[in-house]
């Protein structure tokens, strides 16, 4: 076979092009803003289900949230939205277009466990009340149930896309769902302790991220 023939396409490839053209129908584009709307809708759904069961903090209900609520809400929202945006953007792939801004939001959120650790290392004992808090199962339960709702709806939407880095998408989906699910819980969480946020919120987000890494890639393979 000559070199020229080597680089020509086979008849099979040519007829494939004919088939694909014949099969063409208008297609609706996969738009990132739709993905963000899906995430917002999932958060709202989780919130609507959570409020009648768990309620919201009085200061949040009065629209005058305390400092700790503002700080942790901001960190969780920032991390959740940044991770969600990164994975949503990956539904339309492109070499050189990877978004890593979520790493900075994660670093900011890690200030809570870092602060807790610094306090303990500085001589402040880790509070027993936080370790054995009766609200801990609620924290994990509501955060993870909300994360499951958000993560499932996000994953279902992502399946329409063409995600090429599946493990990364799994981590990011789990991280986004965990942060936003924990945000929903935080609106009703009575604790104002940085140790509580470090331990229980950190655990909820961590479990969700690991679950995302383990479960999401197989759903996104194409």
């Amino acid at each position, binding site marked *: 076979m000559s*070199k020229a023939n080597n680089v020509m396409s086979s008849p099979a490839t040519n007829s494939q092009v004919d088939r694909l053209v014949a099969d063409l*129908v208008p297609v609706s*584009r996969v738009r990132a803003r739709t993905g963000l709307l899906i995430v917002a809708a999932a958060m709202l759904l989780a919130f609507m289900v959570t409020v009648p069961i768990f309620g919201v903090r009085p200061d949040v209900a009065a629209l005058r949230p305390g400092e700790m609520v503002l700080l942790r809400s901001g960190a969780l929202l920032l991390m959740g939205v940044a991770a969600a945006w990164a994975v949503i953007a990956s539904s*339309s792939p492109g070499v050189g277009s990877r978004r890593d801004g979520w790493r900075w939001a994660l670093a900011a959120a890690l200030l809570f466990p870092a602060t807790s650790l610094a306090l303990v290392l500085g001589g402040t004992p880790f509070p027993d009340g936080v370790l054995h808090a009766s609200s801990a199962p609620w924290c994990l339960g509501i955060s993870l149930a909300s994360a499951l709702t958000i993560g499932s709806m996000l994953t279902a939407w992502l399946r329409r896309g063409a995600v090429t880095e599946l493990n990364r998408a799994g981590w990011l989906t789990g991280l986004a769902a965990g942060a936003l699910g924990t945000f929903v819980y935080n609106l009703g969480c009575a604790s104002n302790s940085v140790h509580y946020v470090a331990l229980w919120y950190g655990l909820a987000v961590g479990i969700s991220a690991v679950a995302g890494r383990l479960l999401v890639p197989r759903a996104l393979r194409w």
Partner: protein
Amino acid sequence: MRADDTTMSALMGKAQKGDAEAYRAVLDHSRKWLTGFYRGRIDPAGADDLVQETLMSVHAKRGTYDPSRPFLPWLAAIARYRWVDRLRRGYRRPESELDETLSEGDHEAEVIARISIDRMLAQLSDAQAEAIRLVKIEGLTIAEASGRTGQSESLVKVNIHRGLKKLAANVESE
């Protein structure tokens, strides 16, 4: 005639709306581009299958293309994904020889070089890249690759496993 990336973006935008003529131009261009893209990175007999698989993916995922963005990086990401997937499935044709020639597609060498598979392989350690080249691309057995590289057979397997994992994690990296 060769379409530039701006033209391809416009054509793909029309194809998304159902313009068959534009779509044929996109597929023809993609087919040629992919043939050059895969050449030397998979054995020639497998390359044609891989081009067809990638065109199927382009068809199935055409809704994910954003016409406001360049076309080739989108096509390259899909091509890389299919290539890594092919390697992971253990595709091997030991009897075939690699075709390192370049003819049609040479004119795109600069673009291909920028976003080609070689850039991905360059992110691996030398041992990982060599093991993948020999076993997954050239079709050598593990034992043959072991003899060629001086790595033990188990090390060749480990290097392939870790290398493929790394490739899959870097489909979109430059």
